[in-house]
Structures are given as structure tokens and as C-alpha cells.
């Protein structure tokens, strides 16, 4: 077995778990008692501890163990998640992340820096505080429903508000036609099963297993107002052959002591189950250990508990499992749903982990397949053999399907990226002393993994910018009639074969006059230049607009909006900004869904072939023959359609054909025509990047290879359209010219 690759998996998995933990921690701020979230956090820490132990990363095990113990107390309801503990746990996550990164860089844990060691010690000290704290003030989350928060009266009484049921079904239970789960269903009719712990120790080895026998047992935390007789009655039919113990709420500790005594053969695990059910707290257990309460306590279980025997956990972890599924919720219907969700969250068995490089290779191969297929198809057409042609057509249709499914493999939802910003917003709002909340929508929108990876930095910059410069201080917000809490929004949706990502805030907005003044000062615009507000706003993306006095240590970091724009342009995307003074700002990023393969539309000018992304093509028309020689726009059913003559733009000196065509393209709400010679139809376009030499060329966004093996150029429609709007940014002028055209035409008729 290759240990390196296993360690790679461990590192990747740990990072994922830390991310899950962080997400849950950020969510738990809103609902501190949500048992699902608490379990998710616990599971993450627990699994990291377990798998670190497998690799002998003892430093991680030791550190995580302390955190896990605190989380265990949270789970038992002894400690509650307050903002302080959440902050501490976030730091714990960061510290673990740091250690994981350290390992990933190939270092030894023994060589970590002094600072890391100090952080480690400091966090452990903070965590230990939660372990020492007296548990009396704690509330059990499971008991949240029952309002009467009676403190324990006598010292011999337990704090739990629920019934505890300890069930060991007899071997003949199934044979007598009884089903243990039916009891759970029946109990739900007069109460709530708050927590279930399965007892599996009595399961024999597979070769000794009698499939008709029942080996299972259950430990239940049951919240109900029913009397003992009702609960007792539930088990009437199985009582004789099973061992049913029912402990009412607030029973004396001795009741649990005798229960432990009765289940002595199950040892420490039974105690753990009681703790997990919340029927017994850790403090109560400690009390129970003192000889005064129980004379004959099981010494072996006492000694192992507290060190939380890590070794016994490892076999389950090695098999890729998390801790035994524990379901704690308020009713049965919810319990089923939560179970499904927990399954999904905690490593769905229907998912497989694939090295991203393998996917990239697959997509490259599919790209080559498409090119080879196009060549075959061309040759088949040329051969004139009908059957050959049909076969080639079938082949290319299949190739297209393979392409689509290969590309979807690499599609990921943007939600995970968005959620990462919860942390950013939380930290930055603390840093700035502003109360800002992040609202996320459209997280299910999918795009190519390669794009997602590259969008993080620009988004971080925009979010920080919105918080720093966008959202006003609370006093100012209140004075302007807004709520004190600022809102930053992240939104995503699909539009015309691409994805739109919006970063918006409800802050002060941008002042066009100020920006114009600054742009003039920086020489980016000239005084009195007639620019629309939108054009003025977009000046802030120009290099040299961001200045030192404007950059705070926060959003600055030496990066300006021009870098954001450059990063996005490099992804073949565009960025624009909208703002209303006093109401907020919205930055809209448009990106292609994939950087690999697109549906294209093939056109030709002279000898050269060009590809236009098909989703940007609206329609094709024939260029009207007369009257347009010196014009740059035509009349498309009454609308002004500006157009570009590609022959002229590309300085192609070949003679234009008698009939030219216009491809009407649309992007980001702008429409224009491209005058070309021939329309060659749809084409599966494998995008080859421009490379460094051609990176600066305007109007081109990539290369592709035709069936003939020749290279064709992919047109950069956003770039071309930007040029059109630049040339004709005074729409008034164009429409007055159109009126003139209409006038001329009516005269001609």
C-alpha cells in the first residue's frame, strides 16, 4: 500500500472536515442548541483525532482530544455554545488547519514553530476551562421542550428531565413477530424519543449469527408526560424474555448505578451511552464513582473513562466510518429526515473521491476526441458514402454526449465557496467594529471547478471592499433610516451559458462626481467627458485608480480593483459595477461555465475561420446590400443594431463576397452584429488557451482546432461589444442616425 497517497487522502479529508466544522460553527451562532450541528462539529473533531492517531500524529491527537472532550460536554448538554466558545472552536479549527498545512508541506510535527506551540498551549488552557467548569448551570438541549428548569433538589437526584429506557430484547423477539422499531413508533404517540443509542455488543461473529435471532438493544432518552404504567405497558409482550429497565426523570443516582451494575458485561460503552443520552452527566458520574454512593462500582470502566480510550475508536475510523450514528431531535418524522441529512453530510456512500487531475485528463482526452471526430465526419462527408456518413453522425452525437457528461463531472456548486465567506464576514466585521451579516443565495448554481478555484481571491477582495468601504458606520446608517446591521449579499445565477455572481451591499453607494473627480485627477478621464454613471463607476476597475490613501490595511493589501478585473478577464469573464448613492453597490461578475469545451458557431471571413460561442448568438441575417457602406449600424426590425465588419477590423484585404451575413450577438444586455462572409454552422469547440504571446490580443479569447486540423480563432464577444459601446456610447447619436435612415428609406419607397 502506498502510504503517501493515504496520507494525501487523510490531509484532504481533514481539511474537508475542518471546513464542515467551521460551517457548522458559523451556523450554530443562530441556533446554539441544534443537536445536528453540535453532532456535526463533534464528529469532525472526533474523526480528525481518530485518523491522526492512525498515522501517529500524536500532537494532533492530544490537541484534538481536549477539544473533543469539550464538545462532548456540549453534546451532553453541560456546556452551551455561546459566542465565546464558538470563537474558541473557530481558533481550534484554524490551529488544526495550520497543523494539517504543515504536514501537507512535508514537515514533521515535531518541528513546528514556537508560535504554533504557544497557540497550541494557549488554546488548550482555554479549552480546559470548559472542562473544569461546574456543570450545574448547564441545560440539556434535549430537554429544551420541557420548560420547567428545576435545578436538582437533592444531591442524590439526577438532572435529566427525561425518562431513560434501557432495553435488551430477547433472542426470540423477532421470531415471536415483534419488531423493536415498532416500539419506537408506538412510543412516539405519547412522547418524544429524544435520543437513541443502539447496543450492538451482543452481535455475534457472522458465522455464529442466527439471522432469525434478535441481538439488538437500545438506550433511549424519552421525553413524555405519560405515567410509568403507560410506558411499562409498551413492552408488555416482550417483558418476559427481554430485560427492560425504565428510569423516571430525576431518579436517584443509585438507579443508574444499579443499571450499570445490571449491564456490567457491556462495561464502559454502556456508561458512554448513558452520557450520550444525557440521562447522566459527567459530573453525576464522578459523583457516582465515590464509594459513598455506590459501593461496588466497576473499576475498569472508571479507569478507562476520562482518557476516552482512543485506540478503541480507530477500527471504526479505519473503515471510513464516523462515530455510531446518533439521532437526537424532537419528533420521529424529523428523526428520519435528520438521519438522511446526517448521512449526506457525513460522507455519502454514493460519492467517490477522484483526483482532480484525472478529471482534467479525461476532459483533455474528450477534447482530442471531439477534434478527431470532427475530422472523421469531414472525411465521411467528402467520401460521399451514405453509410459512412450516418455512422460518423452517430459517432459525433455520442461524442457530444460524452463531452456533456464529462464536463458535468467537473461542475461544482458555488455554495461551498460562498459559505466560506461567512467566516470572512464574521471576522472582518469584528475587526471593523461594524455589525454586518452575510446573506447567501443561489448557492446551488453550478460551474466548472477550475473556475471556482480561481474566483475565490477576487470575491474575497470584493466582499472585504463592500464591508470596509460600502457599509457605513452604525450611527450613519441609523441617521439615514437604515437598520444598524449592514447586509452583504452573495448571489449567483445562470444566464446565457454563463454564470453571474453578484456581490452587493446596502451601504452608502458610490458618488459618481467624486469618482469622476478622482479619475480626472489620475488622468483616467478628461474633464467634461460625457460619461454615464455606469461608465464612471467602472472607472474604478482601471489600473491606477486605487490609491494609497484610499486603501485601508483591510481591503487594501496592495490589491486594487484593477487586479480583480484582470483576474476575471483571465477567466474570460467580465465585471461591472452598479451603485445608487445612499442605497448600496452591486458588483456583477459574469463568467463562462467552463474553460474547456463550448458549443460554438463557426463563421468565415476570407480564408480565416472564427468561432463565436453559440449561447451568445441571437440570430443570423443577411447584410442588406445597399446603403450601409459608410455606416456602423443597421435597422433590425425597427431597432438600432450597431455592427462590426470583421474584415475591416482584422485588416483582411481579401475581396468581400457578393453577399455578406450578419451574426447578431448579445452579451450582458448589449446587442451587436458581426459582418462575416459565410455562416458555417454549429461546431463543438475545444478551447485552447491563447497563451502568453497572444494574451494581450483584443477581440480573441482562444484558439480551437477544426476537423481539418487547421487552427481557428475564438472571438472575444464581450471584448468586441465593449468596443462597440465605446464607439457608440452616445446612443442618442445612433438613434438620430437611424431616424435619418428611416427617412431615407421612406423617401426611396
Amino acid at each position, binding site marked *: 500500500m502506498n502510504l503517501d497517497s493515504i496520507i494525501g487522502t487523510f490531509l484532504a479529508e481533514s481539511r474537508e472536515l475542518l471546513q464542515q466544522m467551521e460551517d457548522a460553527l458559523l451556523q450554530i451562532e443562530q441556533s446554539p442548541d441544534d443537536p445536528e450541528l453540535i453532532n456535526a462539529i463533534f464528529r469532525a473533531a472526533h474523526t480528525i483525532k481518530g485518523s491522526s492517531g492512525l498515522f501517529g500524529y500524536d500532537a494532533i491527537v492530544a490537541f484534538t482530544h481536549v477539544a473533543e472532550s469539550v464538545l462532548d460536554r456540549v453534546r451532553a448538554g453541560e456546556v452551551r455554545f455561546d459566542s465565546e466558545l464558538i470563537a474558541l472552536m473557530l481558533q481550534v479549527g484554524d490551529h488544526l488547519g495550520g497543523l494539517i498545512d504543515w504536514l501537507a508541506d512535508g514537515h514533521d510535527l515535531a518541528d513546528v514553530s514556537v508560535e504554533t506551540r504557544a497557540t497550541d498551549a494557549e488554546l488548550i488552557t482555554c479549552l480546559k476551562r470548559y472542562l473544569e467548569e461546574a456543570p450545574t448551570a448547564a441545560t440539556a438541549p434535549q430537554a429544551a421542550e420541557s420548560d420547567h428548569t428545576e435545578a436538582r433538589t437533592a444531591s442524590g437526584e439526577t438532572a435529566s428531565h427525561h425518562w431513560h429506557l434501557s432495553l435488551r430484547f430477547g433472542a426470540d423477539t423477532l421470531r415471536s413477530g415483534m419488531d423493536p422499531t415498532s416500539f419506537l413508533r408506538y412510543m412516539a404517540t405519547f412522547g418524544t424519543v429524544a435520543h437513541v443509542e443502539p447496543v450492538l455488543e451482543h452481535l455475534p461473529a457472522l458465522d455464529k449469527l442466527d439471522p432469525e435471532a434478535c441481538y439488538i438493544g437500545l438506550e433511549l432518552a424519552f421525553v413524555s408526560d405519560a405515567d410509568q404504567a403507560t410506558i411499562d405497558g409498551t413492552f408488555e409482550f416482550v417483558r418476559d424474555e427481554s430485560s427492560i429497565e425504565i428510569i423516571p426523570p430525576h431518579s436517584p443516582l443509585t438507579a443508574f448505578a444499579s443499571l450499570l451494575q445490571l449491564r456490567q458485561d457491556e462495561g464502559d460503552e454502556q456508561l458512554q451511552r448513558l452520557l450520550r443520552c444525557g440521562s447522566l452527566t459527567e459530573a453525576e458520574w464522578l459523583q457516582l464513582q465515590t464509594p459513598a454512593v455506590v459501593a461496588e462500582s466497576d473499576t475498569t470502566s472508571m479507569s478507562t473513562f476520562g482518557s476516552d480510550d482512543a485506540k478503541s475508536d480507530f477500527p471504526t475510523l479505519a473503515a471510513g466510518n464516523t462515530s455510531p450514528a446518533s439521532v437526537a431531535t424532537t419528533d420521529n418524522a424529523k428523526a428520519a429526515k435528520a438521519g438522511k441529512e446526517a448521512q449526506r453530510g457525513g460522507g455519502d456512500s454514493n460519492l467517490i473521491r477522484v483526483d482532480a487531475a484525472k478529471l482534467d485528463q479525461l476532459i483533455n482526452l474528450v*477534447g*482530442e476526441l471531439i*477534434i478527431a471526430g470532427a475530422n472523421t465526419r469531414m472525411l465521411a462527408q467528402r467520401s460521399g458514402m451514405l453509410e459512412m456518413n450516418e455512422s460518423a453522425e452517430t459517432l459525433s452525437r455520442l461524442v457530444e454526449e460524452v463531452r456533456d457528461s464529462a464536463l458535468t463531472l467537473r461542475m461544482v456548486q458555488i455554495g461551498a465557496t460562498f459559505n466560506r465567506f461567512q467566516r470572512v464576514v464574521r471576522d472582518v466585521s469584528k475587526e471593523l467594529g461594524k455589525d454586518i451579516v452575510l446573506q447567501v443565495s443561489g448557492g446551488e448554481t453550478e460551474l466548472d471547478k477550475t473556475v471556482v478555484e480561481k474566483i475565490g481571491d477576487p470575491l474575497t477582495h470584493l466582499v472585504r471592499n463592500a464591508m470596509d468601504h460600502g457599509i457605513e458606520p452604525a450611527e450613519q446608517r441609523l441617521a439615514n433610516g437604515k437598520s444598524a446591521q449592514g447586509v452583504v449579499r452573495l448571489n449567483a445565477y445562470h444566464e446565457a451559458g454563463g454564470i453571474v455572481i453578484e456581490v452587493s451591499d446596502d451601504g452608502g453607494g458610490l458618488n459618481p462626481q467624486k469618482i469622476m473627480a478622482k479619475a480626472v485627477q489620475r488622468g483616467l478621464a478628461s474633464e467634461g467627458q460625457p460619461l454615464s454613471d455606469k461608465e464612471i463607476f467602472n472607472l474604478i476597475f482601471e489600473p491606477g485608480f486605487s490609491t494609497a490613501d484610499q486603501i485601508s490595511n483591510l481591503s487594501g493589501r496592495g490589491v486594487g480593483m484593477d487586479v480583480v478585473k484582470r483576474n476575471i478577464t483571465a477567466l474570460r469573464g467580465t465585471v461591472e459595477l452598479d451603485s445608487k448613492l445612499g442605497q448600496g453597490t452591486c458588483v456583477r461578475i459574469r463568467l463562462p461555465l467552463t474553460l474547456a469545451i463550448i458549443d460554438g458557431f463557426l463563421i468565415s471571413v476570407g*480564408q*480565416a475561420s472564427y468561432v463565436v460561442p453559440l449561447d451568445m448568438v441571437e440570430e443570423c441575417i443577411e447584410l442588406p446590400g445597399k446603403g450601409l457602406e*459608410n455606416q*456602423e449600424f443597421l435597422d433590425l426590425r425597427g431597432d438600432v443594431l450597431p455592427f462590426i465588419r470583421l474584415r*475591416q*477590423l*482584422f*485588416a*483582411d484585404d481579401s475581396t468581400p463576397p457578393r453577399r455578406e451575413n450578419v451574426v447578431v450577438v448579445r452579451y450582458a444586455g448589449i446587442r451587436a452584429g458581426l459582418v462575416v462572409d459565410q455562416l458555417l454552422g454549429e461546431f463543438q469547440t475545444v478551447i*485552447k488557451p491563447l*497563451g*502568453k*504571446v*497572444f*494574451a*494581450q*490580443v*483584443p*477581440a*480573441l479569447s482562444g*484558439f480551437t*482546432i477544426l476537423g481539418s*486540423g*487547421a*487552427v*481557428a*480563432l475564438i472571438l472575444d464577444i464581450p471584448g468586441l461589444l465593449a*468596443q462597440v459601446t*465605446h*464607439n457608440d456610447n452616445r446612443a442618442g447619436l445612433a438613434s438620430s442616425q437611424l431616424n435619418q435612415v428611416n427617412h431615407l428609406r421612406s423617401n426611396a419607397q
Partner: protein
Amino acid sequence: MSTSNPVAAANQMIRQQKDDQQRQYLTFRVGNEMYAVATRYVREILEFDQITHVPMMPSLVRGVINLRGAVVPIIDLAERFGQGKIAVGVRTCIVIIEIIDDDETHLLGALVDAVSAVTEIEVTSLRQAPAFGNRIRGEFIEDMARFDDHFITLLRMEQVLSVNELAALAGQQRSVSIPSSHH
């Protein structure tokens, strides 16, 4: 070495002599001058075939070709040396050069008038290039070598095909060639 097909012969030589490459040079002609490039730069040699023209590029970038799926820019060496455009003839070749720049490997094609041979150049025959009087820019020249009674210029390919410089030239072209308006 047969003179009837120097391209095939040179390709064969390049394949054979990958081991001891230090003093192996590919010699070729641009205009009336002979040049040489160390074989460690040379990936392969192609006979001239169709090139896809890329608009709005400076004239030294003749276009791109498809090299087994990779799109490779073709640089006219005569243009690069400021000697006008290479007129394509039967012996016109593309020398595929591999350059490592900023830790990235770039493939570029050098368009030359003709490829002649792969030869071994003795260290003793190397001469320092004169400070002036060269027909090409000084930084393009690695050395001069005396060979068969004439001088060959050994090229410094990182400079001749500097990706950064080519990109910058392409960028400059941008401002000139976009027709901003036709009024």
C-alpha cells in the same frame, strides 16, 4: 547526410543525439546568413504547411499552427531580425523550439528559409561576436563559430524568442490596429 531531404535527416539526428547534446547545433538559413541553434532547444522540424493568420498581431508573428493538439505561435525570424518577411518557398521550414521561461515551458515555431544540418561545433572554433557590425541585435548572439570557411551565428534562443518581449510587442500593436472609429 543526403541533401535531398535535410528536414528528415535533421529530425533523425535530433532524435538520435539527445544524449550528448552539448555541442550539437542545428544550422539553418535566414536570408543570406547561416545561423545555428543548440539542439537542446529543438523539439522537431516541420516542413512549411498552412499557418492560421492571427489578426492584430505584429508582422513578426506569422500566425499559429496545430502541433498535435497544441496551438503553437510561429515567429518569422527574418522579421525578428529586422530583415523583412520570409517568402515561403519549397525549403521553408518551421523549427519548433522549446523555451523555459518563468518556470513555464513554451513551444514556439521559428520560421526559417531553410534547414541545413545538425553539426557538431568544436569549442575551439568558437569566436566571440564583434561588438558592432553584426546584422542582428547583440543580445540575440551567443557566439560565432567558424565552420566550413564561413561564420555561423549561434543564437541565444531565450532572447530571440523571448515570450515576454513577444507579448509586449503584441500588446503595443493593440493600440495601433484597433480602428477606433470610421468617422
